[in-house]
């Protein structure tokens, strides 16, 4: 169906791809894996006609093609779910789903009733309840991802590319998604599936192609492939243990949140965070974890409850106050809330702690640069250096910039909403290590995660949330998949 050969692509200062190859058959789900910055998304964009390859050929459906625009690729039957969504915040969910494939009615005009109905069906089949008339801007990242996926199912395509579709969704949704993908495969659709969650790869895909540093490494059938082998192909070395050892003796309570409520989203949730401990906030997507975290940090107004830290209690929080008190928050929405996309790495790292790069209000550019350089080395961030624009970095590397920022800023508590979102295994291990280091340095770490393995593997203590209410607190051996799922899905037995 698709044959890529000898494709290279350079951007100013970066060789993103150097003659890579990829061959995808109709009726197979083909995994594309590699570290952050390996060039996966770039290849995706080339296949989709966003970028033109510098060299090499793309053969699609039996003929050599040169897309001059995404429209052309789309017309030829290629649909892409991009790593950064393509959704229109001010259009409704239904409109977004059928954009470009409008449901026609009277006089061939748009039939909004049908659009709405079909959208509803589609979303139900994906097992999510999202109001088709809601504006996308009102949705959580998770729901936005589901809308993105729904878009891929409205019309018959020959090649479907999903770039890290499960980065922000979990459990139930993921299962339903896989179900649909398998169905599509069986109707002979070719699917390229990009993900950093290896278990998914083994679960879903038939063959896998590995990229590293913009170069082709191997294509193999997953049947005769082991996890470790795949990892070493990606990382180029054998991975040591993914998760660092858990903490033995948690320290004193540093932050207590009591009966926090957020309008319509969180209902008097209480939790306490201890120094030296990694606490996870788990639950189904949409449970309101982000809102709870935001409320504690002051990003969202809390309509009830209070936050106690450093001997003071607050009923009103603001981010500046929170930071001043030593709280940091790494948001789940990289693009919208995390980064100033057009400015450089150094600026983004120092943003939350200008004090550390200035004296009496005077910036010390030299110092700022040093810090950036060291952090770039620290987290192995692939970029053009401190002055490189964040916009053009790979998703995972952007994430690392944020981790670097907040690890420096947070003095007492660091809240990380989906910290390993879109991060490759190698980097994941690093980030886990860093989180553990932060804890060992005496910080309280709160991790919001939809990835069961990392919750179980990393957390010393787990709160489970469901529909805005905290339904369970698990520690030690209680931290097990079934217990979490149970608490996340069933009403609290009271």
């Amino acid at each position: 169906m698709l044959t890529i050969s000898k494709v290279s692509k350079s951007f100013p200062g970066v060789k993103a791809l150097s003659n890579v190859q990829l061959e995808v058959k109709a009726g197979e789900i083909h995994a594309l894996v590699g570290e952050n910055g390996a060039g996966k998304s770039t290849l995706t964009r080339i296949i989709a006609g966003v970028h033109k390859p510098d060299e090499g050929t793309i053969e699609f459906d039996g003929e050599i093609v040169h897309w001059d625009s995404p429209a052309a690729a789309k017309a030829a039957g290629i649909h892409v779910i991009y790593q950064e969504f393509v959704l229109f915040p001010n259009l409704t969910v239904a409109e977004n789903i059928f954009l470009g494939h409008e449901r026609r009615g009277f006089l061939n005009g748009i039939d909004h009733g049908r659009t709405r109905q079909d959208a509803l069906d589609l979303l139900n089949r994906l097992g999510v309840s999202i109001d088709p008339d809601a504006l996308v801007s009102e949705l959580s990242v998770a729901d936005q991802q589901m809308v993105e996926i729904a878009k891929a199912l409205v019309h018959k395509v020959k090649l479907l590319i999903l770039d890290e579709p499960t980065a922000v969704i979990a459990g139930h949704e993921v299962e339903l998604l896989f179900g649909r993908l398998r169905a599509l495969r069986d109707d002979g659709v070719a699917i390229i599936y990009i993900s950093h969650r290896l278990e998914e790869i083994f679960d879903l895909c038939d063959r896998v192609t590995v990229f590293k540093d913009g170069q082709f490494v191997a294509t193999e059938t997953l049947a005769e492939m082991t996890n470790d082998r795949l990892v070493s192909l990606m990382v180029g070395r054998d991975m040591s243990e993914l998760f660092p050892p858990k903490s033995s003796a948690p320290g004193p309570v540093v932050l207590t949140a009591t009966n926090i409520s957020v309008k319509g989203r969180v209902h008097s949730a209480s939790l306490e965070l201890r120094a030296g401990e990694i606490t996870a906030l788990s639950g189904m997507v949409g449970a309101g974890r982000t809102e709870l975290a935001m409320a504690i940090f002051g990003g969202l107004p809390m309509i009830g409850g209070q936050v106690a830290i450093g001997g003071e209690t607050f009923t009103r929080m603001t981010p500046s106050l929170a930071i001043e008190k030593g709280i940091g928050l790494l948001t789940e929405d990289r693009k919208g809330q995390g980064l100033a996309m057009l400015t450089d790495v150094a600026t983004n790292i120092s943003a939350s702690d200008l004090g550390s790069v200035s004296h009496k209000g005077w910036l010390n550019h030299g110092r700022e640069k040093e810090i950036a350089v060291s952090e770039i080395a620290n987290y192995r961030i692939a970029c053009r250096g401190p002055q490189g624009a964040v916009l053009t970095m790979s998703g995972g590397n952007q994430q690392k910039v944020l981790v670097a920022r907040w690890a420096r800023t947070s003095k007492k508590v660091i809240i990380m909403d989906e910290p390993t979102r879109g991060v490759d295994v190698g980097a994941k291990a690093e980030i886990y290590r860093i989180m553990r280091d932060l804890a060992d340095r005496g910080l309280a770490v709160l991790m919001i995660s939809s990835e069961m393995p990392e919750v179980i593997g990393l957390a010393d203590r787990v709160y489970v949330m469901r529909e805005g209410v905290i339904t369970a607190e698990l520690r030690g051996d209680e931290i097990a998949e079934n217990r979490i799922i149970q608490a996340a899905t069933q009403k609290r037995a009271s």
Partner: protein
Amino acid sequence: MIATFTFLTKRRGGLLTVIALILVLTIFGVLVSETFGTASNALNILEQSTPLALVSLGQTLVIITGGIDLSVGSMISLASVLLSGITNGDPLMMVVALATIMGAGILVGLINAGASIYLRVHPLVVTLGMGAILQGLTLLYTQTPIGKMPKGFSQLAYGKVLGLPIGAVVTIAAFVLTAIFLRKVPLGRYIYATGDDATGAQLMGLPRHKVLFLAYGFCGLMASIAAIFLVARLGSGQPYTGQNFTLTSITPVVVGGTLLSGGRGGVMGTLMGVYMVSLLNNLLNFLSLSTHFQLIVQGLIVIIAVSVYVENKRKV
């Protein structure tokens, strides 16, 4: 039911505010002056608002795409002098003239779109420059009021069909048609999508360029048509007729709830915005306030109109 209500308040807050304001102003006017409430005055307002309404209609589409057109004023001036200049009293030439100015309007619009697409210059700058160029061309063509229209052409401004001023009928028709287009035709939705996220639209393979050409072309055309009604009302084209429309054409759009950042809004809000502004001007005359205070009141009302309605977005 609830849904529709929240929909109205949440998404059409601008529209509601303006309608409310219109009611308030009307009631106020009727209280302070006996002649204000008369039908003839109401018809005056409808008729007077025609040119502004038409320009703002075009402006609305452009603004929804996330752009802005600051060349409409000069476009109107140019169209008006060309119309009466070419016609010069000859009904046959008038046909030629009408064709010319509509063509010119569309062409200018297309150039605006083209320049901002291919030169990648912000529309605000492109259209500002274009505005200067058009004003220059106008003065090049004539520096004095020029030509005249055939007898009875002023009927277009002062005549009535089914009791309503012709202009008002045309206006309402134009708005309704555009509204239907925006809602029922895919291209209409694409206008919103483009304004919402231009690069996204491109990734989705939506015809972004087509959308821009359409919006700006339409805006230019509307400017020319507005010029026709102005000439009908002023008897002849003049080198500066359009000047004031450049900025005034934007106010009703924004007052009507369309976001200058693009992607959200609608033409019906604009229509209400237009009526509110015209109503206000008319009312201020009845209050026999000096211009000074008229200006002050205008400024205040506009601010109130828009700041009453707070953008409803998830503020994180």
